[in-house]
């Protein structure tokens, strides 16, 4: 149990733990914010009450997740200072600014309009309300933008250089638009959207399968399928582009993702391993199943590689990522889920085209609904796996190629970090189960169809209680 007295390891574990837990909540709220914009838009356009009740129902789950997202997000920001003080000091010029941009551009926008979105149905008119919903979505997604910009910059630092151990920015635009930025932002944007869609779809499928409000939930289900048609394949494509970038900019990470120990020279076809048992001590895979020549097709869509794929042995052990097995399997998990979700989307679309998703038929689609329920948590697993690949694969660097993780950690007594780490582990685990419990409670209670509908005046009493008819018996001359 040496690691219990190693501040660096403990700080890394604490950051990983808090990040892995934190991510679960904003992932849903970011994607769902867009879904809420769509649903409220349909409500305003069609004035079909069902869409209004959809907006109200899903926003309950939204708020539950949002609150936990805020609560678990604030520690992320402060940990940079508490546990990673040397890193913070070195990169404050850029990284710190971006954290500030996130707070001012994204977080404040989201926080200010969330209140109106959730509690303001009766207090503002429908245009302002819709605008608030849109601004919450804009804020959430701007958050993704800034955070992914900051993280991408840690992966491919650009726009300046280290001077006396401090990163001095030469060109902010160049730093923001660092090589990884665009694909990373898009990959995460689609990841949150896809995860949320499959969660909403899975919950809708659950109601449909139980024959509870199945007509109502077939509406949300169809919105999800329609959106997934675009999102799922695009995500696969962007994922591929991201992989290609890793190949060019972070070859050591790519080697770990593929558990590739030996270099494959240019002009050769590389085998792609499907399952392997990487052994870091022996610097080889103890056992593997490979697909011949597949690596060339995956990386460059052709058999022979134009560039060599470097093996892990190219780097000194202290310069390459460790936990190769974790990176390798996390990567494969992410990809498998990506393909599964795209496949499920494809089958659902086919069934829809065959008329099987109509309110009369949808409840009979038992295996399809079952698959959607199964798919509901998969997006989360894919995202967590993706981040493990991204950040464990970045090791031993915090700022890739420039600042090592060893040199980034605060000098703290290990007991302090151990205490806070334990507290996080306990509290976050409890929170996790609480959210599952209260979330499933919201789902079990189902939508409320008795909420007042904004913009519909209550019927005036005169019309509902017609007065007695008194015939006018005055002489004709008096009736003017």
């Amino acid at each position, binding site marked *: 149990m040496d690691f219990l007295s190693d501040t660096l390891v403990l700080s890394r574990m604490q950051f990983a733990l808090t990040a892995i837990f934190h991510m679960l909540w904003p992932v849903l709220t970011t994607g769902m914010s867009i879904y809420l914009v769509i649903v409220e838009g349909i409500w305003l356009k069609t004035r079909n009450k069902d869409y209004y009740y959809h907006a109200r129902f899903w926003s309950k789950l939204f708020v539950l997740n949002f609150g936990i997202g805020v609560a678990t997000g604030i520690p992320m920001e*402060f940990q940079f200072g*508490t546990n990673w003080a040397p890193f913070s000091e070195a990169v*404050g010029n850029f990284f710190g600014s971006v954290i500030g941009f996130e707070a001012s551009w994204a977080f404040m926008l989201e926080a200010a309009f*969330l209140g109106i979105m959730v509690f303001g149905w009766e207090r503002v008119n429908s245009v302002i309300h819709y605008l608030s919903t849109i601004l919450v979505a804009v804020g959430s997604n701007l958050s993704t933008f800034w955070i992914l910009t900051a993280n991408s910059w840690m992966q491919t630092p650009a726009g300046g250089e280290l001077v006396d151990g401090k990163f001095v920015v030469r060109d902010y635009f160049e730093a923001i638009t660092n090589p990884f930025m665009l694909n990373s932002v898009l990959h995460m944007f689609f990841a949150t959207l896809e995860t949320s869609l499959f969660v909403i779809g899975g919950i809708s499928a659950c109601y449909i399968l139980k024959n509870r409000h199945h007509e109502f939930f077939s509406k949300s289900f169809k919105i999800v399928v329609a959106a997934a048609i675009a999102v799922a394949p695009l995500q696969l494509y962007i994922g591929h582009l991201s992989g290609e970038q890793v190949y060019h900019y972070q070859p050591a990470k790519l080697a770990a993702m593929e558990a590739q120990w030996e270099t494959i020279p240019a002009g050769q076809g590389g085998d792609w391993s499907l399952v392997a048992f990487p052994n870091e001590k022996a610097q080889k895979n103890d056992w593997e199943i490979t697909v011949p020549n597949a690596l060339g097709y995956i990386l460059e869509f052709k058999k022979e590689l134009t560039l060599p794929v470097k093996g892990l042995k190219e780097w000194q052990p202290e310069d390459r990522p460790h936990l190769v097995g974790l990176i390798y399997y996390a990567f494969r998990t992410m990809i498998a889920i990506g393909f599964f979700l795209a496949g499920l989307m494809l089958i659902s679309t086919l069934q829809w085209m065959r008329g099987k998703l109509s309110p009369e038929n949808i409840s009979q689609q038992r295996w399809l609904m079952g698959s959607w329920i199964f798919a509901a948590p998969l997006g989360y697993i894919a995202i967590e796996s993706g981040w493990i690949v991204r950040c464990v694969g970045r090791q031993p660097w915090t700022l890739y190629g420039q600042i090592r993780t060893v040199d980034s950690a605060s000098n703290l007594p290990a007991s302090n970090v151990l205490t806070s780490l334990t507290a996080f582990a306990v*509290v976050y685990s409890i929170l996790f189960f609480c959210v599952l419990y209260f979330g499933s409670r*919201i789902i079990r209670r189902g939508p409320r169809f008795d909420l007042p509908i904004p913009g519909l005046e209550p019927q005036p009493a005169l019309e509902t209680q017609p007065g007695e008819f008194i015939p006018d018996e005055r002489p004709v001359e008096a009736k003017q």
Partner: protein
Amino acid sequence: METLSYFLPQVWFGILALFLFLYVMLDGFDLGVGILSVTASSEDRRDILMTSLSNIWDANETWLVLMGGGLFGGFPLAYATILNALYIPIFVMLFGFIFRAVAFEFREQSTRKVLWNLAFGGGSFLAALGQGFALGAVLKGIEVDAKGHFIGGTWDWLSWQSILVALTLIQGYVLIGSTYLIWKTTGELQETHYKTAKLASITTLIGAILITIVTPIFYEQARMRLFDRPQVYVFALIPLLGVVLIWLLLKSLDRKQERMPFVWTILLFVLTFLGLALVVFPYIIPSQITIYEAAADPSSLVIMIVMIGALIPVMLFYNLYQYVVFRGKITGGHYE
């Protein structure tokens, strides 16, 4: 370039001071209401207290996130050193925030509310306590080496002076929380908080007097600054004005005014804050590191002033707007 490297850190220090002040004022009443919720005599009352915050707590807390981000980007050295030194108070505050935030979500859903009541009240208290210790420790001074890196011990933040500051800050939060509730509620609940406001204004006053006396006696650095002419007149004026404001506050509580107690309390906060800023400036880690030493590269400060500073009016506008949307007294215990 010389003037720029003086001017820019000062502007950015001013912006951060504004963020910190807005945070202390807004989340101050927020946390104060949370602490007061422990004393609420019924679940209905507690419902009202929480409803009075449910749409704003998140936006209020965001000012702290903004302050954190701004300090990180604007004065990286100070951000790293201060947070490193205050490891324990910071995590006490963070866990307080976590308990409190989840209480908002879970209490609403839950049938057994006791646990979440505790999470809300206790979380608010912990958050305020952590902040109080942090403030007290920063004022007392953080031990650093020649490069400005923290070299002190784990428990440096704990001293009788920081306990005094923490207790006073909690009293101040209870005071502003009480006056906020006077403004937002009616009837018996309002009556209760006229009482808590009065009590808190007296305890806050005692704390403030002690701090005012203690500071020049125990801190040589502060003494030199305080008794240097012409500052001495300004510094003499602040406690006097403070006493006047407390008197006005107590008067307005006696007259059962609804909004003025909140206004007087805010003015008291402004005054205290000005006093602290004057004692601290131009240091960002008092009497160790100046804002010029800790400041980020001028180019970073410029871009942050453009990207964040320019947004301040917009952020203020939409915060204000949501206060307008939810103006008026809290009547029921729920929004649905």
